[in-house]
């Protein structure tokens, strides 16, 4: 398993890329919340949100299908919601002759609403990370009052994940190189294999701990004393203000239109 963390970001000369990262983070959350607040069966509301997401994808010069292609990752979790199809009471659409379980129209409506909500929401998350370099996302979180120590910790995690993933990959490769199957001999029990995996985890942990001590020394050598330096400041431009206001109004408007109450 090899992840290249920066692959998520796609630099483009687009208007969306140039937006202040704070605006993008807030909008992503607002969009996801809006999707969550859309009532069950609000198909036109979902469609409108989807169109919005596609528009944003186009505006980011990422192409229409960019987020769509990547958004299937969460769908296996849908299994968890599948029972809704059977358990929500209402107008029966189909009854299984074997088990007597009934599928209702309301159940289907609920299920698909949930799936759509989730699928649409994930478009926003994908776009956010594709149009904003991760260090900028972190900066935005800090500027939006997420505790700086936490943001710094996440920054370190991001920075060192690659290094540690590499060490892990090397260990796994070494294990594979020494995992020969001999004709006529049984492969070792899961318990033994679990023990080996655990020992790998333990030694990686130690190495990580020792590395963190060295990083700490390097930070001390550059003057660190436990306080995080204050964030670089970035002016919010008129364009950013306009975009966020317009987008928020649009989302609220969509909700009002979609909710009959």
């Amino acid at each position, binding site marked *: 398993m090899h992840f290249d963390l*920066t692959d998520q970001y796609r630099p483009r000369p687009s208007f969306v890329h140039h937006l202040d990262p704070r605006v993008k983070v807030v909008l992503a959350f607002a969009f996801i919340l809006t999707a969550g607040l859309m009532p069950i069966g609000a198909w036109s509301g979902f469609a409108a949100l989807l169109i919005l997401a596609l528009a944003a994808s186009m505006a980011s010069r990422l192409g229409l299908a960019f987020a769509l292609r990547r958004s299937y990752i969460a769908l296996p979790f849908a299994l968890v919601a599948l029972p809704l199809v059977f358990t929500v009471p209402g107008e029966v659409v189909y009854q299984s002759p074997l088990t007597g379980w009934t599928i209702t129209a309301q159940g289907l409506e609920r299920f698909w609403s949930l799936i759509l909500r989730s699928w649409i929401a994930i478009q926003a998350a994908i776009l956010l990370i594709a149009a904003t370099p991760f260090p900028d996302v972190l900066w935005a979180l800090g500027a939006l009052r997420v505790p700086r120590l936490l943001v710094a910790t996440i920054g370190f995690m991001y*920075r060192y994940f*690659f*290094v540690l993933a590499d060490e892990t990959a090397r260990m796994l490769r070494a294990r594979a190189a020494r995992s020969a199957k001999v004709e006529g001999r049984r492969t070792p029990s899961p318990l033994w294999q679990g023990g080996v995996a655990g020992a790998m985890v333990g030694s990686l942990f130690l190495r990580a701990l020792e590395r963190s001590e*060295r990083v700490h020394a*390097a930070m001390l050598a*550059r*003057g660190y*004393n436990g306080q995080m330096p204050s964030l670089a400041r970035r002016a919010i431009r008129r364009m950013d203000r306009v975009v966020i206001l317009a987008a928020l109004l649009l989302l609220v408007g969509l909700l009002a239109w979609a909710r009959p109450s």
Partner: protein
Amino acid sequence: MHHTIEVRGLSFAYPDGFQALRGVDLHVSPGEKVALVGPNGAGKSTLVLHLNGILRGQGEVQVCGLPVEDKNLGRIRASVGLVFQDPDDQLFSPSVREDVAFGPMYMGLTEDEVGRRVQLALASVGMPESAARVPHHLSGGEKKRIAIATVLAMEPEILVLDEPTAGLDPRGRRGLIRLLAELPQTMLVSTHDLRMVQELFLRTVVLDQGQVVADGPTAALMADAALLAAHGLEA
């Protein structure tokens, strides 16, 4: 004569009991470039970590005229630039610019001054266009240079480097040697690379088992085959 590094009778034992330094004396004058050599486990890295107060032992340590104690640590760390062996330990920010800016920002300089120093430091190490790059995309040699830049940005008086050429390919090594030759700071370099020592450093200190066993002109020490053999060194 005013020495910029003054170590007298320094002894240090790690928490597990291992006696890493036994009464080390070292005096370095401003502008001198000194090589520190010795076998693994001799105490080179341990000694180096005493120069900016990360480790504290018995004896006296003074840098740039300041005794290494808590109240001077801030100024000392701005004056002694320590470049560690593994650049991955040193490049801990999400982007090169942020890493090079860390030291000056920490010192409380204005954004303009920080920006100026970042530019200058990157130019000094021959990588002026690299500010936006991501550390884990850099090659080994590039990482070493950026690690040096992160320290240069603090405009230290003294540069201390731990194994700067370790792990570099011949091209990277040549580039680094050229860089070290150009930098004007007082320099103390701990290394196994004796060919680099002969090229760059007029004075060599040999450390073995926590003690200074030789301290003098590089040419003379390198010619002393018995000395080299006795301390696990090969020219």
